[in-house]
């Protein structure tokens, strides 16, 4: 005579309800393991998705050209013609350059000289924003008129440090300059965040800037970027290509995305150990349960339960215990992921395979932890109910 599935579960729940504190504690062990694993996967997937999203948005076609060192150990300079040369390279879509003026910027003229707040006053060409895909947060970018005047656009960080926005004045090279715009974060070129940007003509006129670019940013279509990179050094400085450093800023993002995987692997292992310990807890609970409930087992046999039904009952209890823990753990893990995503301003990503894997792990733990105690329960002779009066 087989029991209906609902009866099997009902009897299992009844068994757990008879000792609720113990059931909760042993489920807690599984919950901690599953929560760790789901949270680890969720957090790393969310971070990764965000990095990949940024990569998608910013593209991988940006190249950064900077002067390296000369063979004698001195600092090299990029030729003034460099920007024009790069623009001539086939497959290059846009080019922009910046030049460090070496002049500090201050909120007012009364601030001590040494307190530069780590800001760089840089000359920038008009197509810098388009090349970097850095959005403007407020105000305007430099145009043909303002790049000749004492007008500045602040990088995101620089605006914060100077406490200035569009319409405010900042003190550069002994003169007041007017802020016309503020940039958003520049993920691919973090140095722009700390920059106070002015036009090349203005820099040469008011700050005695020599006009040599210190960084050239160029963007090519993603599929041509490797080819462009190979020729850039020679293009920029045909005589001393070895003095030119070319890098691909998106590599750092890609590397970070890849690094989350390795990290996830390690933490997932930690979660698995926690789950294993939780499983041992469930097994322990079940073993004790069988010892304590010999009377009940005998009674059920007298009422007509087969060995198989007793075995099923204890296996069901074990599975219910671990599923209880698994469900609570998955919930906690998802909540942690969500909290992390809100804190870091990411989209929460909880991969289905993580939840599915968690469920599978839970069932496996429940089955493995329960099978031995359940078999012991089934082997107990039915005369027990009467013997232990």
């Amino acid at each position, binding site marked *: *005579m*087989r*029991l*209906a599935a*609902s*009866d099997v579960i*009902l*009897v299992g729940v*009844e068994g757990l*309800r*008879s000792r609720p504190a113990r059931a909760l504690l042993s489920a807690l062990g599984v919950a901690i393991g599953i929560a760790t694993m789901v949270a680890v996967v969720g957090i790393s997937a969310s971070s990764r998705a965000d990095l990949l999203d940024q990569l998608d948005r910013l593209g991988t076609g940006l190249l950064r050209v900077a002067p390296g060192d000369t063979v004698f150990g001195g600092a090299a300079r990029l030729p003034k013609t460099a920007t024009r040369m790069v623009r001539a390279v086939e497959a290059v879509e846009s080019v922009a350059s910046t030049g460090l003026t070496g002049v500090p910027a201050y909120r007012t003229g009364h601030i001590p000289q040494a307190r530069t707040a780590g800001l760089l006053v840089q000359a920038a060409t008009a197509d810098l924003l388009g090349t970097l895909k850095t959005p403007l947060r407020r105000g305007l970018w430099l145009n043909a008129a303002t790049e000749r005047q004492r007008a500045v656009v602040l990088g995101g960080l620089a605006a914060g440090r100077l406490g200035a926005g569009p319409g405010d004045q900042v003190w550069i090279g002994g003169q007041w300059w007017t802020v016309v715009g503020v940039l958003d974060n520049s993920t691919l070129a973090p140095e722009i965040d700390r920059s106070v940007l002015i036009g090349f003509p203005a820099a040469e006129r008011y700050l005695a800037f020599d006009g040599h670019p210190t960084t050239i940013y160029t963007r090519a279509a993603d599929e041509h970027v490797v080819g462009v990179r190979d020729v850039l050094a020679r293009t920029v400085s045909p005589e001393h290509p070895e003095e030119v450093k070319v890098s691909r800023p998106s590599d750092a993002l890609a590397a970070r995305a890849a690094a989350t995987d390795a990290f996830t692997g390690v933490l997932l292992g930690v979660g698995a150990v926690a789950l294993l310990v939780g499983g041992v807890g469930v097994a322990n609970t079940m073993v004790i349960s069988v010892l304590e409930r010999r*009377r*009940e087992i*005998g*009674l*059920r*046999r*007298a*009422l*007509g*339960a*087969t*060995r*198989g*039904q007793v075995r099923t009952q204890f296996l069901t209890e074990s599975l219910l215990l671990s599923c209880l823990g698994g469900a609570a753990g998955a919930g906690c893990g998802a909540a942690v992921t969500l909290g992390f995503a809100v804190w870091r301003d990411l989209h929460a990503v909880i991969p289905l395979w993580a939840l599915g894997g968690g469920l599978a792990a839970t069932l496996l733990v429940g089955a493995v932890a329960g099978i031995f105690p359940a078999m012991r329960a089934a082997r107990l*002779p*039915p*005369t027990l*109910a*009467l*013997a232990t*009066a």
Partner: protein
Amino acid sequence: MIELIGAEKTYPGGVRALRGVDLRVAAGELVAIVGPSGSGKSTMLHLIGTLDRPSAGTVRIAGHDVAGLDDAGLAELRARHIGFVFQSFHLSEHLSALGNVADGLLYAGVRRGERTRRAAEALRRVGLGHRLDHRPGQLSGGEKQRVAVARAIVGEPALLLADEPTGNLDSAAGAEVLAILRRLHGDGTTVAVITHDNEVAAAAPRRIRLRDGRIV
């Protein structure tokens, strides 16, 4: 209903609890199995209740030879034909009287709603219709044993086995339980009461005395 032919039981370690017992109990009888402790009463109960198999000889219950049944077959025999009442009640503290009695039908393949309905009916038969939702902790000893009797008869078994059913009860409660057993016997159920209490035994029309594993 009960047929033992040359039934022997020897436990591992060499204890011979039953030494060739022949016994026939017809359907509808009320018998008392009496004897001092160690006489083999419990062993006989295990054999009659199909909770254990004889080392030698034949045990036939409700027409089924125990030797010819496997574990599932024996379990089904118990579920359908035998009701047990134990000295210490064996009720679940976490279930109501109704839930405890309904569990008596769990392994007989009866659906849940039907189990509850028949459980209520069985409780009314033992005079506990007003105690359906009480837990064992809220019941007196006599009431607990009546719940246990209700659980034993809820499946309307042909054979009711009671192991010292009054052993843990005062005389008034014991008399009540005995009265119920007699009423069930009057309704046609075969009842076997295992006891060492002579008063209980005196209430039965037929007494089977055991001593040292033999009927005397």
